[in-house]
Structures are given as structure tokens and as C-alpha cells.
């Protein structure tokens, strides 16, 4: 709870700093505040938490682990933003404040114990993101991204709410435990309201995490929004979406998994194929990352289809590996774009000769996204697939492996452009903050790849 309070008060402090023109203090204050919040989250670890506020929130180990993950990723993204937002507008306090408000929503989303809080958390997060997507007021692509994201987000919230209402109508409560008990005491019931409710909740949540066939807004929004906001949306927000998805389905609906798991299975397979095959045709690196984020949503859905004791851990490992690798990719994109002015793959030609460190970090990130052994991405995929194999879902794993092979092709395009294509270019200046983030992320990616036990037994 302390974490949530700190993360909610910090943006208000930042707005005051902005009001009194203390621009230099913004980033240090943000990072110090978030480190305190991080420490408060770690203190909650293994305290045998009970639901608080009439069962509204539950800060158990699951919520601690995901809060820590999102806070660390947000700190990394904010460090990359040093000098980035100043180019967009002169009111930079707002950016930090809105990102932190969104993070507060994410913390609610990973610690809810009542469907009310799930809805409130998703809305706090989404409303902040609508603003962030459209933060370049005069840029048409950014406007378009904001409007599309807003309309699709509000639309999906409608489905989520209708689903929640139907579940309330049949079970008489919003509390996750009460809903679970209702399901257990009515094992053979054919309550149409309840099952329709589950399906509508699946639709709403799949919109939020960008799984096919509800993914069509993702590429446009990710391409139109500023690169670092896209990095935030495709890493922290996506991980939180899956954490909420998992928490709801594992606590409340796990006993009726025979009803909903075929639905999610179809969604998973469609998501994998659509994400990977469309990513093959992209010329823009940013748009390729958007489609790859759709296909990663497919891999993350594996843990929900094959719901088991290890699912929470596999979601966490996969989401961490994916987030860290994506942060490197978006950071490199920001730097290359500043120099060449283009998002396309050609912008990376010959990068290795002038910037060996940047090229090396980006290579590690691409290898991790593709799931090559000795990187964190491989461990993530390994946990996902072994969870599915434990439940004898062979066909699904075979399809996923085919997709992983397809994905290698487009991730390696960047590596080939950097190392084997030559182009006239000057050295890209890598600021110190970027060097730190890249170094840290590469170390974490390799460390998890070699010693997965570091984070694989947390929950």
C-alpha cells in the first residue's frame, strides 16, 4: 500500500516542481521517489498479506513482484527520457507526472482483489495513456494515435464492464474469492449470464493487451505515439495487463477452465500468426516492434491457456525478458532516429562500425526477443512451452516453435543491417544515461539467460 501512496503523491510533487520552474530537479526527484517506492514494495515481500479495505486490494507476493518489475522498467524508460521530452514541449513536468499516474494505475491493476479495483486500475492507467499517446499536439500521427487509442480503449472498457456486470448478476459479488466460491458451489450450473460474462471479460482484456483479433489498434498507436511512450506502452502496460488477466482467471475462473481455455487457445494461435507474419513485411523498425509486441502477447497468453502452478512465474520471467529487451530496442531507435531522421531498417545500416557498443546492445536485445539460448528471452519461452507441455498441449507448442522460427527472420534483419550493410554515417552520440540503461539491460538479459533461478522462483 505504501508503494501505491508514494507513486500517487510523487506526480503531484512533480507538478509543483514544474510550476516553480525547477526543471533540473524533475528527473532526480522522480528517480529517488521511485526508488523509495521500490524499497517499500520489497518490504512487503513475504509478509503473509491479507486482503485490505474490505477485500479491495491484496498486496501478496504476486503483486510485489509485478510492482517491482513495473517500477524498475519505468525507471529505465525515464532515464532514457533525459533530454527527450524537452524536444517535444517546454512543459516537461507533465510527462513525468502522467507517466507516474499511469504507473499508479498499473500498481492497482496488479494488486486488485475486487473487480471494482480492476476497473479503476485499468481506467487510471488508460486515461493517462490516452494523454501520453497524443502528447505531440501538432504532430498529426500522434493525434491520430491518441484518438484511435482513446476510442478503442473506451470501447473495450464497455465490454469489460458488461462482463463484470453479468458476473455480478449471477454471483452477487465483485470479490474474487466470493466469485470463486460461487463457481465451486455451483459446479454443474449452466448459468448463461456467468459464462457470457467470462467471454465479455476476455474480449475486454484482449483489447487491452492487444491480442488478435482485437489487435488492430496496436500498430497504429505504437507507431504514432512518441518512441519512449511506445516503449512504456509495449512493456510495462502489457506486462500489467497480463498480470491482471492472470490474477482474475487464476483466482476466480480456474475451476471452469474447460469452458474458456479453448477460446483463449484460438486467440493465442491467431495472435502468434498475425503478429509474426505481418511483422515480416514491415519496413519500419518501430512498426516491426509493434507487430512483434502482438506476437509476444501470444506467447504470454500461453501461461493463461495452460493455467498451472508455475504460470505466474512464467508470465513474470517472460514479461521481464521482453520488457528489458524492448527498452534497449526503443532506446536505440530514439538515438538512431535523432541522427538519421528515419524509423526504417536502412537507418541502422553500418551502425556496428561507428558504434560497436550500441550495436552490441541492440544485438543482445534482438537475440533475446527472438529467444536464442543464453539470453533471457530463451528462458521466458522455455518456461512458457514447458508449462504447456505439462498439460499435453503438443500442437500448440509446435505452432509456437514455428512462429519463433519466423520471428528470427525479422529480428535478424536489424542485426544484418548493422553488421553487414555499409553506409556513410557518423558516430551516434550515446549520452551517459543511455549507456547506463543499455549496460544494465544487457547485463540483466545475459544474467537471467545463464542463471534463470535469479527470478524464476519468486512467486
Amino acid at each position, binding site marked *: 500500500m505504501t508503494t501505491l501512496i508514494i507513486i500517487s503523491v510523487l506526480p503531484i510533487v512533480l507538478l509543483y516542481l514544474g510550476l516553480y520552474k525547477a526543471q533540473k530537479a524533475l528527473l532526480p526527484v522522480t528517480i529517488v521517489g521511485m526508488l523509495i517506492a521500490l524499497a517499500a514494495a520489497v518490504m512487503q515481500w513475504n509478509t503473509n498479506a491479507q486482503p485490505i479495505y474490505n477485500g479491495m486490494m491484496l498486496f501478496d507476493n504476486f503483486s510485489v513482484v509485478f510492482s517491482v518489475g513495473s517500477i524498475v522498467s519505468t525507471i529505465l524508460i525515464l532515464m532514457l527520457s533525459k533530454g527527450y521530452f524537452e524536444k517535444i514541449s517546454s512543459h516537461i513536468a507533465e510527462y513525468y507526472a502522467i507517466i507516474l499516474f499511469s504507473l499508479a494505475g498499473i500498481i492497482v491493476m496488479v494488486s486488485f482483489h475486487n473487480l*471494482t479495483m480492476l*476497473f*479503476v486500475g485499468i*481506467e487510471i492507467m488508460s*486515461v493517462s495513456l*490516452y*494523454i501520453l499517446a*497524443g502528447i505531440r*499536439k*501538432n504532430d*498529426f*500521427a500522434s*493525434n*491520430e*494515435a*491518441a*484518438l*484511435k487509442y*482513446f*476510442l478503442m480503449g*473506451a*470501447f473495450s*472498457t*464497455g465490454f469489460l*464492464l*458488461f462482463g*463484470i*456486470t*453479468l458476473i*455480478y*448478476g449471477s454471483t*452477487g*459479488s*465483485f470479490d474474487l474469492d466470493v466469485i470463486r466460491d460461487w463457481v465451486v458451489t455451483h459446479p454443474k450450473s449452466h448459468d448463461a*449470464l456467468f459464462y457470457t460474462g467470462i467471454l465479455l471479460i476476455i474480449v475486454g482484456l484482449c483489447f487491452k493487451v492487444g491480442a488478435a483479433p482485437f489487435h*488492430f489498434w496496436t*500498430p*497504429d498507436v505504437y*507507431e*504514432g505515439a512518441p518512441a519512449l511512450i511506445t516503449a512504456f506502452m509495449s512493456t510495462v502496460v502489457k506486462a500489467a495487463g497480463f498480470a491482471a488477466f492472470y490474477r482474475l482467471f487464476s483466482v476466480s475462473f480456474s475451476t471452469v477452465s474447460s469452458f474458456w481455455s479453448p477460446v483463449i487457445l484460438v486467440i493465442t494461435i491467431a495472435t502468434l500468426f498475425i503478429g509474426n507474419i505481418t511483422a515480416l513485411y514491415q519496413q519500419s523498425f518501430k512498426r516491426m516492434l509493434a507487430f512483434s509486441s502482438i506476437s509476444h502477447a501470444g506467447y504470454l497468453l500461453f501461461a493463461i491457456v495452460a493455467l498451472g502452478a508455475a504460470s505466474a512465474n512464467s508470465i513474470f520471467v517472460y514479461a521481464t525478458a521482453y520488457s528489458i529487451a524492448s527498452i534497449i530496442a526503443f532506446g536505440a531507435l530514439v538515438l538512431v532516429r535523432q541522427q538519421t531522421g528515419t524509423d526504417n531498417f536502412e537507418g541502422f545500416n553500418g551502425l556496428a562500425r561507428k558504434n560497436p557498443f550500441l550495436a552490441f546492445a541492440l544485438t543482445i536485445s534482438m537475440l533475446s526477443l527472438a529467444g536464442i539460448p543464453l539470453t533471457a528471452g530463451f528462458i521466458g519461452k522455455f518456461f512458457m512451452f514447458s508449462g504447456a507441455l505439462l498439460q499435453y498441449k503438443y500442437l500448440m507448442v509446435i505452432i509456437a516453435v514455428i512462429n519463433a522460427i519466423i520471428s528470427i527472420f525479422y529480428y535478424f534483419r536489424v542485426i544484418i543491417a548493422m553488421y553487414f550493410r555499409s553506409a556513410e554515417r557518423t558516430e551516434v552520440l550515446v549520452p551517459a544515461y543511455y549507456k547506463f540503461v543499455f549496460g544494465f539491460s544487457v547485463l540483466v538479459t545475459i544474467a537471467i539467460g545463464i542463471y534463470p533461478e535469479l527470478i524464476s522462483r519468486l512467486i
Partner: protein
Amino acid sequence: MNSIANTIHAVPLNHYILLSTIIFSIGVMGVLLRRNAIVIFMSVELMLNSVNLLLTAFSVYRGDAAGQVFVFFIMALAAAEVAVGLAIIVMIYRNTNSIDINVLNRLKW
């Protein structure tokens, strides 16, 4: 209070469910078929309000206040969404002099 509850009870629960489903479907069709951003926006509000109606009906039929409290959450957050959404629409209008969503095709769908 009792008289309101009695009035609500006078209509069977199934009718509320049907009415809300119909209004919700009208909202969904509005979002999918209309091209004007404001009308789409109104359709979204229609969806949310059908949910409010259904929650209230369930809440009265079960004699449980939680459903009605949820309605307040939905109204408050819908208001926050309206504020941000209208700001976005105004921003688009300033740049393009139009709120037709067909203008928004610079990025491929």
C-alpha cells in the same frame, strides 16, 4: 426508498437484462458504423449507461448495495474519460478542421 425498490421489482429481471443488452448492442453498432468521432463517443457512453442500468437492476434484485456503488465508480471514471476524450477531439479538429474519422488514415489500419 422502499417504494422505489418496489417499483423496480414490478418489472421482471429478465426485461432489464434484455433492455440493457439491446441498448448495449445499439452502442456497439454505433461505434462500428458511424464515422463522426463525437457520435462514436456518444455510442460509447450509451454502452456504459446500459451497464449502469443493469447494475442497478441487479443490485436492487439482490438487495446488495455493491452494485450501486460500482455505478458511481463508472460515472466518475466515465466523466474523466469524457474530459480527456473531448480534449483529444478538439486537438484533432484544430489540426484538420474535421472530426470525421476517415481523415485518420495517415497510419495504415
